[in-house]
């Protein structure tokens, strides 16, 4: 790999406006390669994002023969990269086998190969780890993860993940501009009561973030608050005790009263102008945790006097409902990159009909989003970002109820060198991070003997085969013998 490959990759992304990366490189105005090891990028405005662009470098000699219209359909086999391993064998949806790349510029890994396998079933995956079929598993469900803790030969890690789970609101108000500019829907079915920030704050006060973290994540997470997760420690706004919209149903009722919602007919649900406050909540049928959270939230809102109808739907149906503004509230989550830029962008006006799932549009927030992009001083940028979080927290487009952890588990009896990488959060995960440390450090345990996998020795199939043949022979002999005796008798 030379500087030419780097320059080629960035130019290609810019020329083709490739969706996944374009926002990370758009600010680049010129790219030069003075020598084999140097690339010079020039941007129009100062850009903090240039320090954190996760762009995979493509080999120029392969891709220059692929015309733009074939970018998406190009098979890219064999895969050419520049990392510590080379893909040597793979079957789509089943596995990929990587062999050590002896020419890697940072040295040669101490293991010969890595195999990634895709399990369709979590229980089987966990059994495979216990059985020693695999050395590492990523993201088992919480109950299975708990069952692995304190097991001999297995180490577990529950690492803060830069993401959160939230209750989101439909804040769409159809305007000719929005319809024109964003191709937004012409109507909304969202309950207009939610457009009142007081009502949203009332909902936040009626939800117990601590309880959800304890009951659903079984404590493996942090109660939620602002849009930048605490895993991004430099940028996360830590709220004062007095600022937190905690769990207080009475407070919630007061806020509703302030917004004009009172239970005048004594049916337990607040009303205004003869209209009862009844909301719809979509939870994800593909995520059991969101269904459970929905049940908790339904009870809490009812206590505060808000009627709630919860429905579990598929992710595709939920995506449709959001883009059609055909919802009141939903539960979903986001993952952040190491840089907070992306997670902040989700709530900007520009992302309506893009990443936005609330139609929330706050001009101060969106303006500051552009500002922080150009703030090269980390402290200054962090101050802007913290202010943005405060704006969003006070206006409640989301009620972020927890920051979930990511789970991983690995065997300690065969390999050592599992290295937690605090790329984003401390202490971080050992694998599936933005670094290759674990892959470079892993080495066989000095004391361990040959693995005792099922592949060695005589296959049990041989015994089963022998048993079947034996049974067949006995059966034939018996039948023949009987027949003969029958003939003798005849």
């Amino acid at each position, binding site marked *: 790999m030379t500087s030419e490959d780097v320059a080629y990759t960035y130019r290609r992304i810019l020329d083709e406006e490739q969706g996944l990366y374009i926002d990370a490189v758009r600010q680049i105005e010129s790219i030069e390669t003075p020598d084999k090891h140097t690339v010079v990028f020039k941007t129009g405005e100062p850009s903090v994002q240039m320090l954190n662009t996760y762009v995979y470098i493509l080999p120029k000699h392969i891709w220059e023969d692929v015309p733009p219209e074939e970018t998406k359909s190009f098979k890219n086999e064999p895969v050419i990269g520049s990392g510590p391993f080379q893909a040597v064998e793979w079957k*789509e949806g089943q596995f990929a086998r990587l062999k050590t790349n002896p020419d890697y510029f940072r040295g040669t890994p101490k293991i010969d190969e890595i195999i990634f396998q895709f399990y369709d079933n979590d229980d089987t995956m966990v*059994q495979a780890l216990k059985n020693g079929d695999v050395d590492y598993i990523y993201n088992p469900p919480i109950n299975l993860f708990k069952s692995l803790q304190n097991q001999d030969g297995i180490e577990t890690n529950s690492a803060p993940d830069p993401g959160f789970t939230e209750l989101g609101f439909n804040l769409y108000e159809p305007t000719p501009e929005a319809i024109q500019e964003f191709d937004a829907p012409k109507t909304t079915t969202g309950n207009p009561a939610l457009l009142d920030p007081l009502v949203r704050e009332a909902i936040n006060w009626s939800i117990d973030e601590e309880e959800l973290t304890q009951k659903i994540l079984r404590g493996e997470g942090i109660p939620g608050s602002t849009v930048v997760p605490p895993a991004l420690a430099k940028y996360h706004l830590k709220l004062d005790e007095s600022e937190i919209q905690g769990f207080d149903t009475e407070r919630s009722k007061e806020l509703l009263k302030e917004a004009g919602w009172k239970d005048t007919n004594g049916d337990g649900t607040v009303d205004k102008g003869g209209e009862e406050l009844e909301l719809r909540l979509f939870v994800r049928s593909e995520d059991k945790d969101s269904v459970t959270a929905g049940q908790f939230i339904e009870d809490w809102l009812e206590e505060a006097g808000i009627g709630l109808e919860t429905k579990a739907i598929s992710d595709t149906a939920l995506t449709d409902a959001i*883009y059609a503004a055909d919802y009141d509230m939903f539960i979903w989550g986001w993952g952040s990159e190491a840089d907070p830029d992306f997670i902040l962008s989700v709530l900007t006006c520009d992302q309506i009909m893009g*990443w936005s799932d609330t139609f929330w549009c706050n001009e101060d927030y969106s303006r500051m989003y552009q500002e922080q992009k150009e703030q090269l001083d980390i402290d200054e940028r962090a101050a802007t970002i913290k202010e943005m979080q405060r704006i969003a927290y006070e206006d409640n487009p989301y009620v972020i109820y927890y920051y979930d952890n990511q789970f991983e588990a690995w065997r300690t009896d065969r390999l050592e060198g599992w290295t937690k990488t605090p790329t984003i959060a401390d202490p971080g995960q050992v694998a599936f991070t933005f670094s290759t440390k674990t892959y470079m450090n892993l080495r066989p345990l000095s004391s361990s003997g040959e693995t*005792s996998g*099922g592949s060695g020795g005589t296959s049990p199939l041989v015994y089963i085969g022998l048993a079947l043949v034996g049974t067949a022979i006995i059966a034939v002999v018996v039948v023949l013998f009987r027949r003969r005796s029958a003939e003798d008798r005849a």
Partner: protein
Amino acid sequence: MVGAVGTLLFVLVLNFFLFRILPGDPERTLTRLQRVSPSTIDEVKRELGLDRPLAVQFFDYLGDTARGELGISYVFSRPVSEVIGNALWPTILLVGVATVGATIIGTLIGIWGAWRRGSVVDAASLGFGLITYAMPEFWLGMLLILGFAVALDWFPTSFMTTPGLADASAGVQLVDTLEHLFLPALTLVLALLGEYALIMRSSVIEAMNEDYVTTARAKGMREALVLRKHVVPNALLPVVTLAALNLGFIVSGAITVETVFSWPGLGQLTFRAINGGPDYPLLQGLFLLFSVAVIFANLAADLLLGLLDPRIGRV
């Protein structure tokens, strides 16, 4: 025969509209994890042909299907025929072996049970068949994994092959595949067994009460011979129908078993096609294949019965 062709045409039409009733826009799902502008979405729509009126899409679909072109899968970005082709053989291997195994073992158990009706053997085999038949397949699969893969460590827990054997000899690869096949196939055999055993048992008992059996016995034939010559051939007819019909379902795979064992077959593919899109062309291709298989299996069952039982005659 005319009926079969008619059914096929009906399925073609139903196939198209059925999947368009499903919630979800493919262009939205495909671009969900990317920062997309409305113009990109329009472009994706155009690429997938989703911007044109439904009627136009429908006639395109009919024409393409007639020419044997099943389209390009949205999820895999490869021709549907290729994607299905890759998943077809694993499923035929797994479900084929399991169906043949279950038919033979189930039938034998059924005959034995009927012959020794009321005995301990009969009660035990009947109970065993009913229990495995009633067990959820994924649970049975997990039990077998716990027993044979974890506790005994005889067989691998998942997948069809061990990675890294691409250069190994054919013999080693065959043994490897058979080892991977054993547990999922055993799960299916156990799950299907009961059905065959029950039908065969009642069918044999019924046949044993027929006049021709009484006649045969009256001629002084030995009981075993009566069973082999007169009872079993007649009692087999319902089992033949059942086996032929089940063969039709072979290709639709065994979604639960394929999922538990991560077996790369058509059941797993169907699941992924529904989740990732929905992937209209792939789902249409899959359901066309499933329908054709069932229709042909029905046809085959009719023809076969005609051969085995002269009373039914020509179809």
